């Protein structure tokens, strides 16, 4: 294999590559990544050896193996020496739960920033905007601890000319601050960002209670983090958009699908309501029984591929989310690439046998 500088990712105009162009570009790059991680990570090498992985046998993206995301909670997987780690990111787990640990070096961190910023600006426009962060400031204050939430906020903040945290430290709505900020930025496009659940719980519900009417019709909201916590309120994407539009006039709302194991290559929701792969990421849906590849329109477990992870072997991961690809290059929004939907998470098993369910409850 000829040597490729993996940190030197070309700036392809986003969402323009057709299927064939994408496959050619992507497969070559991702195979180099496999090689890189096999050489640099003892753990990854052992995993690939155990399944007799051989790059020569890979003719298509669909042939690429994957490692379950849960492994990042169980092992410290890195493809760089400790002294090159500049940042360690963790997933947001509830107390007591194991969290993913993702080790970044300078190259990977800068790739993440670069690709994230290109994806966002393709939706927001290239000039920076006044930004309202729907969260409280202390979430990002702790510089030693990069949770998915703080990393998200920090990453997206690159687009801000100035910032406002819309929530107080007790997660209540900072109404006065919001009023002033909107006044100061009258007639300007405003970028709102937050985590889906927080947007709904601490922003939408507070606006609903408030006597003040806020006009955000000129704003764009980007939110992510998943819908799991909103199931109890039975809020789906459609309801979410409708309710927010009713309360503050906002009409441009984009969900995104991403995970801490593949920061940077997020999948943005288009105007048609579908999530999109970019040139730097790909998605494969796998049959949950035998991991064979599902056809478009068939639901299965999501495998995510990304060209950014150099410092840890997170370039091909098996999530625990269920998804469905609707098509490739044909979305009405005009973007090339695969477009897909998420259908929740895999259900936990109820085990039979004398394992520890009683003890589980104590945790």
């Amino acid at each position, binding site marked *: 294999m000829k040597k490729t500088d993996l940190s030197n990712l070309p700036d392809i105009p986003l969402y323009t590559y057709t299927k064939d162009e994408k496959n050619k570009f992507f497969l070559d790059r991702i195979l180099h990544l496999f090689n890189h991680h096999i050489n640099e990570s003892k753990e990854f090498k052992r995993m690939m*050896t155990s399944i007799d992985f051989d790059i020569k046998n890979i003719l298509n993206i669909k042939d690429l193996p994957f490692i379950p995301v849960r492994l990042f909670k169980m092992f410290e997987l890195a493809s760089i020496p400790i002294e090159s780690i500049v940042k360690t990111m963790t997933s947001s787990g509830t107390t007591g739960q194991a969290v993913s640990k993702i080790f970044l070096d300078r190259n990977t961190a800068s790739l993440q920033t670069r690709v994230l910023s290109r994806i966002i600006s393709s939706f927001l426009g290239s000039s920076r905007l006044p930004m309202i962060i729907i969260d409280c400031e202390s979430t990002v204050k702790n510089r030693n601890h990069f949770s998915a939430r703080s990393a998200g906020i920090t990453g997206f903040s690159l687009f801000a000319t100035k910032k406002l945290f819309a929530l107080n430290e007790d997660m209540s709505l900072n109404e006065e601050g919001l009023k002033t900020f909107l006044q100061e930025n009258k007639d300007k496009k405003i970028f709102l960002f937050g985590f889906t659940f927080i947007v709904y719980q601490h922003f939408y519900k507070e606006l609903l209670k408030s006597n003040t009417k806020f006009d955000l019709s000129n704003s764009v909201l980007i939110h992510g983090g998943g819908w799991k916590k909103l199931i109890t309120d039975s809020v789906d994407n459609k309801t979410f958009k409708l309710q927010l539009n009713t309360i503050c006039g906002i009409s441009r709302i984009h969900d995104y699908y991403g995970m801490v194991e593949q920061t940077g290559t997020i999948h943005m929701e288009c105007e048609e309501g579908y999530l999109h792969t970019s040139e730097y990421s790909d998605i494969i849906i796998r049959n949950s029984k035998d991991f064979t590849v599902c056809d478009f329109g068939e639901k299965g477990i999501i495998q995510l591929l990304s060209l950014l992870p150099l410092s840890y072997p997170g370039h091909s991961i*098996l999530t625990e989310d269920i998804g469905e690809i609707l098509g490739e290059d044909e979305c009405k929004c005009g973007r090339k690439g695969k477009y897909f939907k998420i259908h929740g998470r895999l259900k936990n098993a*109820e*085990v039979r*046998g*004398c394992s520890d369910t009683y003890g589980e409850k104590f945790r």
Partner: protein
Amino acid sequence: MEKNLDKVEFLIGDKLEFNQGLLIEQSLDLFSVETLDFLSDISEVLFKSPQIRNFPDVATFAFYCRRSNLNLLKRNYINNINSRIGKGILFHIAPGNVPVNFAYSLFAGLVTGNINIVKLPSKGFEQVHIILNAIKIVLSKEKFNLIFSKRLFLLKYDRDTEVTSFFSKICDVRIIWGGDQTINEIRKSQIPPKSTEITFSDRYSIALINAKNYIDLYDKFKFTTDFYNDTFLFDQNACTAPQTIFWLGSNEEIDTAKLLFWKFLKQKLIKMQYEVLPIVSVDKLVTFYSQAINQGDIKLESSDASEIWRVDNYSIHNDMNLFKCGSGYFNEYSISKLDEILPAINRKFQTLSYFGFQKEHLFDWIKSSKPLGIDRIVPVGKTMDFSLTWDGYDLVNSLSRIIYI
């Protein structure tokens, strides 16, 4: 005390009987006539109940309680009966997910003449319901009611350390089924200084198959059913279920035997319509890669049944027990003589199920080589059969005290 009992749902017995029982009742004789009558009546009621056909585990329990087996057990323990008295009050904590287990624990408590407090699984298993009904019917007969209504308390309560502590404080023996985590948690509740404890912790079990004898075996269907019952019947999660198969023979014999064995098992899975949940497939991959990272020299063996994952081992490791997943995750290791297994056996090892060996031969081998684990040596198909000797404990002796004269 009242406060704690209020948090408890009594399925057999009630608060009043409970308070009386603790004050006045004494142990019964070991294998007393009344107890054996009581148990064999339960067996009869169970066999008459129409639902028993759907629940082979209930049928097995009913069969275990039949008169002839009770007499046999009594004969086996005849020496103990004369010199022993039940310890007093037993507090059984049944596992949350094996429906019939509580009944065997109770069985051991009853034949040793003790008063039994049994915490039932919180899930509403049909099997539990059937057995409870049978006990209620038998208990309603006056002769049994008089004796057993103050000796038998089957109950449920939600996770509550105070209630657990309450029962722990008054018991002479605490019996904990259900794994390491449960045991550690329950142990935060003290038992009286003189009381003892029987713990059934997480265990690891293996199968040993003589390849040549398997190839020569005529009825492979029956053998496959036996193996299926040992494993897939409870999603390979019972602590008795083999996780690793050791194949003894020449390379050619082992290759042939494996080919046949897995082919038959696959057919059995299809016939039983055995299915795994999507998350379990991910669990298997997680287990497999964890094992690969830790051990390094394993290979995933291709298998045409997606429910069966076969892991080929090239060397022996003494931490095999860490990599079990259930629902069809098997390690395999080829040997040419028994001693090659020894380095793998640690304290966690419980059941060795075998095919194509002499029981005495295996016993002598274990006896002379003295590995840290292996408490049971049983033929394939018999791993789940209950016995009053379990997990290295003689339950009759552990639940009674001996009088020295």
